């Protein structure tokens, strides 16, 4: 009769084997000459553009991660491994400058507009919700509006605009915070909320109905900035990527995605 191997021993053996294999894979991976890697942390609203830029950039592998600029800036300040930061607001570039986390001067990458979107086929589109106060008047009982969380640039622009229009207090009970602007977009697309505040460029990449544009004078200018980071693994590559963002190819991509160029 076959002797049964005790479970603990079997697990230990399996683990040892797995570790040996992983070790081999790692050793093999580092032995081959790999191109340098540029880790780009970018505002969620730049997702498609930065993914396309990553493919265009030559001589290095670009690994992008996306999130709220506020969240990314805090991670960078806490020492997260990153080479370049693309922020949807100058505020979080300033934050990192104060923390002495930037390498060289930041550049202005692009500009954007803040818009209000509703799910496809929403009655709000036909019903005349053409500005923030009309939207508020048209919302049914219990209907909610998605907004990026406080501190997240898209949420800050929207809150400042509503405050400027003296509508923030009236909106407050209807606002559902979301972790970043793409989470807002998703909640609207899924029909979980009646409307949401996103960037004009976001409205183009989802099946949503655009209700109105916020008056640009009601909030600070929506300006994207990019900077190489002090903690970069390869500062030269990080700077080269930031320079690439100002080149013709990058500008053409940004313009095609609907961003205004500086």
């Amino acid at each position, binding site marked *: 009769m076959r002797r049964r191997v005790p479970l603990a021993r079997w697990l230990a053996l399996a683990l040892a084997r797995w570790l040996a294999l992983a070790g081999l894979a790692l050793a093999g991976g580092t032995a081959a000459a790999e191109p340098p890697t540029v880790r780009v942390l970018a505002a969620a609203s730049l997702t498609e553009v930065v993914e396309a830029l990553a493919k265009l950039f030559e001589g290095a592998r670009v690994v992008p991660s996306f999130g709220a600029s506020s*969240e990314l800036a805090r991670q960078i300040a806490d020492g997260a491994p990153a080479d370049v930061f693309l922020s949807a607001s100058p505020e979080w570039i300033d934050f990192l400058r104060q923390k002495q986390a930037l390498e060289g001067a930041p550049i202005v990458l692009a500009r954007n507009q803040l818009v209000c979107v509703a799910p496809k086929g929403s009655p709000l589109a036909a019903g005349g919700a053409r500005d923030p106060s009309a939207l508020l008047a048209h919302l049914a009982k219990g209907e909610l509006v998605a907004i990026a969380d406080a501190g997240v640039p898209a949420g800050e622009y929207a809150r400042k605009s509503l405050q400027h229009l003296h509508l923030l207090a009236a909106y407050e009970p209807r606002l559902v*915070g979301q972790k970043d602007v793409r989470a807002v977009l998703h*909640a609207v697309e899924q029909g979980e909320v009646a409307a949401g505040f996103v960037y004009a460029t976001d409205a183009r990449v989802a099946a949503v109905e655009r209700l109105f544009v916020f008056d640009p004078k009601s909030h600070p200018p929506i300006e994207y900035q990019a900077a190489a980071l002090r903690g970069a693994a390869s500062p030269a590559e990080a700077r080269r990527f930031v320079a690439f963002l100002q080149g013709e190819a990058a500008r053409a991509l940004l313009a095609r995605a609907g961003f205004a160029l500086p």
Partner: protein
Amino acid sequence: MLGDAEREVVLLSLRVAALAVAASLAPGILLGWLFARWRHPLRALLQGVVMLPLVLPPVVTGYLLLAALGRSRPLGRAFHALTGGHIAYTTGACVIAAAVVGFPLLVEAIRLAMQGVDRRLEQVSRSLGRGPLDTFARVTLPLALPGVLAGAVLSFARALGEFGATIVLAGNVAGETRTIPVAVYTLLNVRDGEAAILRLTGVSVALALAALLGSFWLSARQRRV
């Protein structure tokens, strides 16, 4: 001390956790008793389903709940048609998320407590002419009570800390669904949020520790029975 917004956050958290435990108690006692006494192959499967939220990523639990109860999903729509209200993104959604995630802890504590009850005492009660329900209410439940309460306190503490399923199903509405963990998560994005985070962290640690100690004390009483 706590500001007005923070006090609102703490009170909402306490209310959500209390409601979640209150709603879980009756089904929790029923299932705990079932898992302690019922001998059937299906029991393991049912137990697995009930325990699932303990090991599933809470965000996945939240997604499953949203897929069922979301405002554009069938059950969410049916609820809206029936009551005119909504589930997703309301305090009710927080309570549901907290109840589902805390439920396994409650059921498991009750199951252990009921397994510890001497079955001969139940048999004595039956032999003296008491019905099964009466025996359960007058013998089994009172003997298992410390364990039941320990489970309630533990699931209350778990409900207070619930974040993953809550953020998906209930979002982040000030005064409605912004519980302590959601508020802390929001404050992480705010430039000068550190002081408020520290205050809410202090409250969290104090509440969690008090609940754990309470549950230990109650469990110890259960063992002595």
